[in-house]
């Protein structure tokens, strides 16, 4: 009996051991085909049914080329490298993280299955991660040194002088599969697909990003052109191009009140520097046909001021070109050629950049707002339309394809510089003609939404980037009173309280005198 039990135990142990040693390819296949194949394809070549809607395209696993590695350029990644991408996903792309979605065993199984698409994983020597060392502390000197290398090794050729991804080589970049690929906007590190920390930036500089135009800079260390320490300085500099923290999304854009006549109406007016910016993320318009899955603009920053008579908005967004730009025509050709779905006019053409700011025609009383995609036939919206080739004008829309100008114009000033558009739009709070045009009231939340089109990315009409409804809130009074009022209220109520207390104490003392010898412990005299 004991012997049988022992044999059984041995059998269990041996089976468990075998199971641990052999990758569970069947399980990996099942997980892969259920969760991964829609994008990466059943055969692993990255051309799944959904792939055409994505740029950058899903990874082709059959060539063993991985962007985010700890190994030298051209090498296969380590298992940890692949697992990190499975767990955390790739920001700035359509690849989500699976850590909370799949069990550890499933993730391990799918990792092995993914590797099986590139047989040399089995025969090649295990890749050795680079020893990256530790990040040195950042300092002004270091950032200055980093900037010098940013210039001398010509990062700006692709990423541009300000890092916004608009360098002279940017329009013609392609990946190893021939697809158009954008030079990353270095000022948005939360969108870096390999992570935005200085350590992660340094790794990308050392390993390169295989399959993309981003080379490895390790050879520059071997050639004694620069030291590891100097490369760290560059990493710090690149990190410094982005804010410390990703911008926070807030529902309400605040329009402070300034003195009459003090509303800045030009882009370059320095008074804008003091005005708070509100970050509004944009997404692809994929509801109304023709849809567009690859908008190049992912957010706008909005600043707003009014003086009781006029309101001005300064809208800022990153855009790699001042469309229509001849150098970017080939980018447009290539993007329109590869993107699904094949809807609408996909012929490349000189298209301007556009901005539309959307409001309801009048401030809704309740939470009811027009349909966020430019309204409907029975509940239209009021638009400010700006284009890089035309004056800004007011319009009314009954849906994205039913836009009619209302006549007249909206005062505007615009500038494209170093990968960024800034547009100031100004209008009186009360329109001359109140039919179909919004009257801006103070002290109430007014719905507002934004649309941006990048012409050189083939965007126009329904092909563009959109936001949902946000609010803009015009403060009643000049900003100084914003701070004075609560203070006054504080002192007023505080003072009144003191008066009340003093009176009560006085009355108590009078009572005490009248009643003679009260219990001294009675709490009546205490201030509650």
């Amino acid at each position: 009996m004991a012997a049988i039990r022992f044999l059984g135990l041995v059998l269990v142990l041996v089976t468990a051991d075998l199971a641990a040693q052999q990758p569970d390819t069947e399980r990996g296949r099942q997980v892969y085909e259920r969760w991964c194949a829609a994008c990466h394809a059943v055969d692993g070549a990255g051309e799944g049914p959904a792939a055409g809607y994505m740029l950058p395209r899903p990874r082709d696993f059959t060539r063993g080329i991985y962007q985010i590695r700890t190994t030298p350029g051209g090498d296969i990644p380590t298992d940890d490298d692949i697992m990190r991408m499975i767990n955390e996903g790739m920001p700035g792309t359509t690849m989500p993280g699976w850590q909370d979605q799949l069990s550890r065993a499933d993730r391990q199984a799918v990792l092995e299955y993914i590797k099986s698409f590139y047989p040399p994983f089995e025969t090649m020597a295990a890749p050795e991660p680079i020893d990256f060392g530790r990040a040195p502390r950042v300092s002004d000197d270091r950032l200055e040194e980093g900037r010098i290398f940013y210039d001398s090794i010509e990062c700006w050729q692709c990423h541009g002088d300000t890092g916004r991804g608009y360098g002279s080589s940017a329009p013609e970049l392609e990946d190893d599969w021939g697809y158009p690929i954008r030079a990353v906007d270095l000022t948005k590190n939360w969108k870096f697909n390999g992570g935005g920390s200085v350590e992660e930036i340094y790794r990308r500089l050392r390993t390169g990003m295989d399959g993309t135009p981003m080379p490895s800079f390790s050879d520059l260390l071997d050639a004694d052109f620069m030291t590891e320490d100097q490369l760290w300085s560059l990493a710090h500099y690149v990190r410094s191009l982005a804010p410390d923290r990703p911008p926070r999304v807030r529902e309400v854009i605040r329009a402070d009140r300034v003195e009459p006549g003090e509303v800045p109406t030009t882009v370059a007016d320095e008074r804008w520097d003091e005005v708070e910016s509100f970050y509004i993320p944009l997404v692809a318009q994929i509801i109304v046909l023709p849809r567009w899955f690859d908008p190049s603009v992912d957010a706008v920053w909005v600043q707003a001021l009014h003086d009781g008579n006029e309101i001005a908005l300064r809208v800022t967004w990153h855009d790699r070109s001042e469309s229509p730009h001849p150098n970017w025509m080939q980018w447009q050709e290539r993007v329109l050629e590869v993107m699904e779905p094949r809807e609408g006019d996909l012929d490349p053409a000189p298209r301007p950049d556009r901005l539309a700011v959307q409001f309801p025609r009048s401030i809704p009383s309740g939470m009811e707002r027009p349909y966020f995609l430019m309204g409907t036939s029975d509940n239209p919206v009021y638009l400010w339309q700006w284009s890089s080739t035309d004056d800004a004008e007011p319009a009314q829309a009954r849906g994205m394809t039913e836009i009619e100008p209302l006549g007249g114009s909206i005062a505007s000033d615009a500038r494209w510089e170093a990968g960024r558009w800034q547009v100031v739009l100004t209008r009186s709070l009360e329109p001359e003609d109140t039919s179909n045009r919004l009257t801006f009231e103070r002290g109430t939340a007014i719905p507002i939404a934004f649309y941006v089109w990048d012409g050189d990315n083939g965007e126009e009409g329904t092909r563009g980037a959109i936001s949902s409804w946000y609010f803009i809130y015009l403060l009643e009074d000049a900003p100084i009173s914003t701070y004075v009022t609560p203070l006054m209220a504080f002192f007023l109520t505080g003072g009144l309280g003191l008066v009340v207390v003093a009176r009560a104490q006085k009355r108590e003392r009078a009572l005490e005198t009248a009643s003679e010898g009260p219990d001294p412990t009675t709490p009546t005299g205490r201030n509650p």
Partner: protein
Amino acid sequence: MRYSDAVTRALLPFALLGLIVACGGDAPETEADDAEVEMPFDVATAGHLQGMVLFEGDPPPPEVLDMSSEPDCAAQWDDQPMRDLVQVSDGHLENVFIYVKEGLDGMDFPRARDTPVMDQVGCRYTPTVIGLMPGQEITFRNSDGLLHNINSSPTVNRGFNISQPVNMDTQRSFASPEVMIPVRCDVHGWMRAYIGVVPHPYHGVTGSGGSFDLRDLPPGEYVIEAWHSQLGTQEQTVTIATGETAEVSFTFTSEMLGTAVVPLGEPIYPHRHHAPHSAPATR
């Protein structure tokens, strides 16, 4: 150099795998990386092959390159910078890669000891086509002193993407045979080059006279392939006899432009059926 060796070592098993395929399942030689291999035949019995590559019809006009973003490069050109994707002089076609495609199976040749140089001058590759043997090093040289990157995208081999922002040399090698490996500069989209890796020394690239010369071949029957980046490939069978020089000529025509299938490993651009890495002509 240290790094290249490391890469080579890392790729060695893959190279052996490639050999297994190339040798039709024969057991791979397990010699060390740098071990001396003798010529696998008596060179006294060798013959030679000479040939010519001709072009019929009108070659496409040279493409004008916009180098305004790189004035230092533009300054190195006498006139307007241009690129001839199909370079023809007196009906002779240049930049054709010629190699023995079949007939040497099972023969193990010593690795060539020279290190060819692919230079970057005036924002163009010089030369634009180079042949190598597996493991043989190539030097990428930046004579321009401005940023180039050398981005190779092989299908069989492991690729690399080197940054060269200054005057410098960088060595690399490929472990396995592959015809052809595209090389591009992402900074200057017009810069394209091609590297052919074949497991023997019988390869060459046609120069200005369109001629080539493969010396000291073992006697036998061979399939010779001629590869051009825009015009595709052609094959011919030749017989080499001891002490004799066989002759062969290839003719490409202008009609092949735009329709030719240009092998670059496997097809890697599913939406486009012509040569993916030579497309700038249409841009």
